[in-house]
Every structure is written in C-alpha cells, then in structure tokens.
C-alpha cells in the first residue's frame, strides 16, 4: 500500500464523515432548539387554561387533589345600579377535600364563566351579595384550614351581559393542573 493510496482513503473517509455530520445537523439543530425552549414552553402552557376537561351535570371531578362538583348556576335578576343589560351570575360549587395542602394545590385558583364564543368572565367586585358564613370563594378557601374529607362550599359572583347568559358555563383552573381546566356542563346541556 502506497502513501498516496492511504491519503486517498483517508480523504474519502473524511468526506463521508463530513457528509454524515451535515446530515446530523438536520436532526441536532431542531433537537437543541426544542431542548432550549422546553422550559419556556412548559412555563407558558402552565400559566394558561387551555385544555378543557368536561364534567357532566351532577358529576364530580378530581382536580387539584379534591373532588369538584357544580351545584348551582343562577342569575340574580332585578338588581339596581348595575350597567344596563348586565346580570349578576352566581356559581356554586361543592368541593370534597382530598389532599388538604390547598396552599400548594389550589394556588392560582381561577373560577370563570365561558360562553359559546369562548369569551371568559372573571369574578367581579362590582356586585356584592350576602352569602352564608360557611361559603368561601376559591381564594379564601385556600386559607380555610380545611382537612381531608371536609366539604367546602364555594361561591363566585360574576357580571355578564344578558345575552351571554344563555350559553355561559362555569370553569375552574388551578396552577397545579394547568394547562388543563374543568369545564362544567349545566343541567340543560
């Protein structure tokens, strides 16, 4: 074997590996980008209520360590001093506490109403209706000191346009479960 043929062979090998490396980049660059973006995407998705988990009327769903059940959704008609064509809506839930670490599991608790167009209403402070003493809001329930097996009664008050009341349905999101959220069906559904 002459020096020249050795040279030629190593040149061939080098060329082959260069080609392989270039092809490998096609795979490695997207993989590296995905690896870098993974945490950001996870944080982004974890902050949004994106994927609904449907809950049939009368059923309860395990969410954030507890069992959530929608007990009532009704309008409080006939109130004065509100914007025209707006209706206060009360959503009542009964939650059986499973894991009592609510300060961790219920963090970022958000109850909302969603209509057929996908518009979302958050609880309002414009309407204050008197509630019985044992009724909490989602946020106040976090600090209620509830134990395993306790049942919490939650109520949130919303202000929605009258024409939206036909299609609104309640939903609940918790930081520990995002991007999934509970989407409750009503009796009429």
């Amino acid at each position, binding site marked *: 074997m002459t020096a020249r043929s050795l040279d030629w062979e190593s040149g061939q090998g080098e060329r082959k590996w260069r080609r392989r490396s270039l092809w490998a980049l096609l795979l490695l660059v997207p993989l590296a980008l995905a690896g870098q973006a993974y945490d950001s995407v996870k944080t982004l998705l974890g902050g949004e209520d994106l994927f609904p988990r449907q809950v049939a009327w009368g059923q309860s769903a395990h969410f954030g360590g507890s069992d959530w059940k929608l007990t009532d959704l009704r309008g409080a008609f006939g109130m004065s001093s509100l*914007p025209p064509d707006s209706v206060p809506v009360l959503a009542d839930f009964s939650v059986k506490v499973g894991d009592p670490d609510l300060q961790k599991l219920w963090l970022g608790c958000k109850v*909302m109403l969603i209509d057929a167009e996908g518009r*979302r*209403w*958050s609880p*309002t402070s414009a309407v204050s209706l008197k509630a019985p003493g044992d009724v909490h809001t989602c946020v106040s329930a976090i600090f209620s000191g509830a134990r395993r097996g306790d049942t919490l009664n939650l109520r949130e008050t919303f*202000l*929605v*346009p009258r024409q*939206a009341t036909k299609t609104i349905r309640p939903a609940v999101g918790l930081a520990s479960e995002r991007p999934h959220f509970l989407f409750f069906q009503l009796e009429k559904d």
Partner: protein
Amino acid sequence: MMRKMANVILLLLATALCYGLQVSKPHYAELIGPIPAYGKLGDAVVGRGFEARAAKVAFSRNLKVDRYGQTKVFTTGGIWAVVTVEFAASAQSTTVAVASWRGPTGLAYDQTERLSFADGLLPVAIDPGLPKKARLIFEVRPDEVSNATLLISEKLMSALDSQAEISLGPVAAGADGLPAETVDTLDLTQPI
C-alpha cells in the same frame, strides 16, 4: 500578495458589517417593549386584551371631588387634564391599570395619585360585552397640552403586550397660555 490584500479587504468588510449591525440593532428594552396600537381622539383603539376610545379631553384649573362625603377642591400649579375613556374587554375579563400623558416635547406624566379615592379612576376592571367609562386625570404643564399622546396599558410592565397610543391633537391656547377651553373648576362628583 493579491490574496493577502483580498483577505484584508474581506476582514475590513466583515468589521464594517458587524459594526453596522451593532449600531443599528434595537435596544433590548425596545425589543421586549409594549406593542403600540395607534389611534386618535374618538377612535376605538384595539389592543390584544382591551379596547379604548378616548371620548373627550377637558382642562381645568381646579378639580372638585367628594372625599368621604366632604367636598374637596384640588388646585394645581399647572393644569388638570381629564380624559374620559370608554374601555371594553376583548375576549376575557381584564384590568386596565396604567395611563400616562406624553407631551409634545416627550415629557411623560403618570396619572395623578392625589385623587386615589375618587370614583371612576384607573385601575378599572372590565368584562367582555360590558363597556365601562373611566376618567384619566393628569396634572401637566400648560405647554405640554397641545399635540399630546395618551398611553394606556393593562399593567406597568406591558412587555410585548398592547399599549394604546392615542394622539389627542392640537389644543388652542388662550391669552393666559392655558388651553382656550379651560374651565375654572371641573366637578368630578358628577357621574361620568
């Protein structure tokens, strides 16, 4: 020799290109800054989460407000500019909390904090389908009144989020240097 020259020229070109890129690149604060939604007085300016329409601007020397049932008059060394704005939420409930008045020379005035107890000031919570009016109140210099821009955003650090930029147009000045339509006292106890 030619090859060396070519290399030197290439190096110089690359340096010039890098320098050009460096001086022309936007500042980081601009890259992640608010995204402007432009409009003028009377326009509905549509941002990502909210819509704002500045209906009117009023100027006054004094403001009359209700404070815990007592009437109080606020004077100023400059002039009070009161903008009535109608807000609407786009797809979900939100809060509009920040507004500032940018004068023609670039001086920016935040909303006054002297009236924090009055009704109808920001922050204002808005729900879809339920538009709401609010008053934005600024204490500005008379020479910052004409051709000012109103900046409104949901929160203070509105990085990569909409900011309504509403140009308020020219304002004719009177003999005393104040806007011609300046009233002596504006009554904020009246509903918006």
